[in-house]
């Protein structure tokens, strides 16, 4: 009898531990994503003050390269160098091979669909995206379109005359299992940094007409 009961207790305990562990894992990913952005603020400050490759913590293999903000979504994120899996856990990552953020060419920034780049789904053509460079410049981009592509079938073509920004995340948004092959790409082009009046009504925290 006792063996059966013991088995029962063990089963329940195993299930509870496994369940809690899984939930912990899930929450950990979100916590890491949130917390890292806070820690990155400091490194970004250093970067703004001219420090090269200011790593947010001593053993980090990435560093801030720009700030990305989307007033219409109340988003302000620090973009990291590189888009390896390790990096993307902490923030959106800029692809090394693509153009430097804020400069001519096409810059690719990728982020996780369930953490930092969840907002991509809600972006609309015409929305403004701001990129603050380490040199203190603010570039304004206007969203042109969004497309869904197969990750293996998309590539970038040379177009050095304009500055473009491509924000990439996984698609479909609702999918629960990671590792899908589709990507959602929001494409934006640099525009004249004239403030758009409509932003006033979208609650841009940084826009103050008075």
């Amino acid at each position: 009898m006792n063996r059966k009961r013991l088995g029962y207790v063990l089963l329940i305990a195993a299930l509870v531990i496994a369940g809690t562990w899984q939930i912990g894992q899930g929450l950990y990913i979100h916590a890491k994503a949130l917390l890292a952005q806070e820690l990155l603020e400091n490194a970004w400050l250093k970067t703004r003050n001219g420090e090269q490759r200011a790593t947010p913590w001593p053993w980090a293999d990435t560093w801030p390269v720009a700030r990305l903000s989307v007033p219409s979504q109340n988003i302000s994120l620090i973009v990291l160098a590189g888009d390896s899996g390790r990096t993307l856990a902490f923030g959106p990552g800029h692809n090394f091979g693509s153009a430097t953020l804020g400069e001519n060419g096409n810059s690719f920034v990728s982020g996780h669909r369930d953490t930092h780049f969840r907002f991509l789904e809600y972006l609309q053509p015409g929305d403004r995206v701001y990129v603050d460079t380490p040199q203190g410049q603010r570039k304004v981009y206007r969203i042109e379109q969004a497309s869904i592509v197969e990750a293996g079938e998309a590539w970038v073509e040379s177009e050095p005359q304009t500055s473009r920004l491509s924000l990439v995340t996984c698609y479909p948004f609702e999918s629960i299992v990671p590792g899908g092959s589709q990507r959602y790409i929001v494409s934006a082009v640099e525009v004249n940094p004239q403030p758009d009046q409509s932003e006033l009504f979208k609650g841009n925290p940084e826009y103050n007409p008075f």
Partner: protein
Amino acid sequence: MFRTTRHRLGYRKKREYFHDGYASKSGIVVWLQRFVMVVLVIVLMVFLMLLGDVVHADENYQQLPQVNLQDVSEGSLLLRTGKPGMYQQVPILHSDVDMRISGMIMRARIKQSFRNPGQEWVEGIYVFPLPDQAAVDHMRMHIGDRVIEGVIKEKQEAKRIYEQARREGKKAALTEQERPNMFTNSVANIGPGETVVVEIEYQQVLRYDQGKFGLRFPMAITPRYIPGKPVSENITVTGTGWAKNTNQVPAASRITPPVYQGRGKINPVSLRIELDVGYPLLEVKSLYHRMAQRKHGVGQITLTLAEGDVPADRDFELVWTPDVGHAPKAALFSEKIKGEFYHLLMVLPPEQGAEGGQPMAREVIYIIDTSGSMSGTSIEQARRSLLMALSRLRPRDRFNVIQFNSTTDLLFSQVREANQRNLRRAQRYVRDLDANGGTEMAPALTAALKGQGESQYVRQVIFLTDGSVGNESALFDLIKQHLGQSRLFTVGIGSAPNSYFMRKAAQYGRGTFTYIGDVREVNEKMAALFTKLESPVMSDLDVQFSNGVQVEAWPKRVPDLYHGEPIILAAKTSTAGEKVIIKGMRSLAPWQATLNMTQGRSGEGIGVFWARSKIAALIDSVHEGADKTKVREEVINVALTHHLVSRYTSLVAVDVTPTRPQNASLDSHALPVNLPQGQNYQKIFGQLPQTATPAELHLLIGFVLLLLVWLIMHYRLFARITGEHDK
């Protein structure tokens, strides 16, 4: 049924009923008991499977995202329009390779059959690798039974002749050199269903190192990283590659053939080798391909691929060892052409073990290439090699590790002592290396060569890479400029490293090169390299011919020799000559050897060998500051005299009769090549990173599990099962 059960379970009253039922062991209750067990087992199994999936996804999540857009530096996004049948109209290629080895020279004949399976007239353009010292001296175009011999022309002129024939609807073939180890064959006007064969012949001198002869036949090109900013297209004639010409690699589009992405492999190759070396052999080994051997006599063996054709997706390497006591120590081959005498001279200095007394402490800088093309099997080979290299350091040595891809990263900001603590840190660093990103080599090389410290250290730079860059020439300049007291040793990694880069970088770095194409080779090949690093070098080599003979010998300055390496020299003399005296210094002890030239054996291809050596030396002289136009003139001169394809000369063959009707159009197709074995398309061209986390999946599984617990506890089904046994 399931619904009913659940419904019943929902009522406590019914539970009593069940309890009673259970006690009386009614059939229903037993069935229910089993049912619940089965459900639980299934849920558990599903959970475990999902868990496995998550773990797996997590791995991907570590590896897959390391991708980049290195093939192009900027631009807008395009969708690939191609479908699986993308290359259907592209000519299909089959290559037959025939090699003959005798003495110190290998001669090869490659027949490339271009078959047009489509309905249109096509032009096929195929970029293919050859050994970096290959001297291509013949090209023939076979149309049915007819054979048209290619003629050697200045490169632009050859191109014009080809273009004209192409326009006029005549069949034509053109063989051009893109890099010393990369060539292009173009064939114009292949009719629907037709096959045109382009046959090229080349020769190369064998590598003789540490008692073994080696022959490397490259079959694949690792996609080259093209640094720099794209230049506008209308300035230059573009090739057919995937890369745009850039300010750093002007002909990038010519050295980046499209990579086949379909199922399986393309471009089959058949291979046959006749070995006829004249000395008994201890061992003949093909490192990466299974070969069937047939012996004919002493030192005579025929080798063919054991399993028929192989896809051109990795380098072929043959190594043979002369039997004990038969290893040649010196050899002289001569050929008389038009009243002039050409010689190939090989002398192997006697071996000498490590110096007596303490060898000098070393300062070793390891550079490891962690770019996207190193992903897959290559990075594993590089990591293992590097770990082995670290283990060879002695406590008084100093070291550092530098990795580079798009950026350069140093393990320590300065060289550090090779103590346990630092070595452990280095090992951890190396184990964590992962391959992704571009191949920006220059900053890493600069970082390794600069900051040279005290002279009581022997400074060695060990460079592990596949050399897949398009800006070789600029890198050679950089090495030459910053070398100082350092010596650079290249270790070619992977199934298709850039042999031209390996050899030349080592030459400019006054070191030597080695190849590792498989993890299993790491121990043996690295050990051989360490022997070289730790043995005294033969330096100040000088070769003198007896008085009164006019001599033109290449290379002008004989490079330092590492353990087990012979001097190989090409010389042209006005008379047959008498004697050659070779002098050198090894750890302050002079060494001298005399060779009697009258005893030289006559050999074929020695003139070509001399011409090829001269061209190589001339091209090298540009890095030493020689005038480019003058060098070009001289190269064209030698190449035309000896019928050689070079940077400035091409072979062209044109059929006299036009075959394509004037009204039929001509489609031009770049023939796709295989990605070298063990490499990952996604990592090299790979586009977008993995951008989903398993967070939600984790949460979902977690909640399901807890719900399950709640259900079980709430209804205490199990308690009752055990309760039953209490009775």
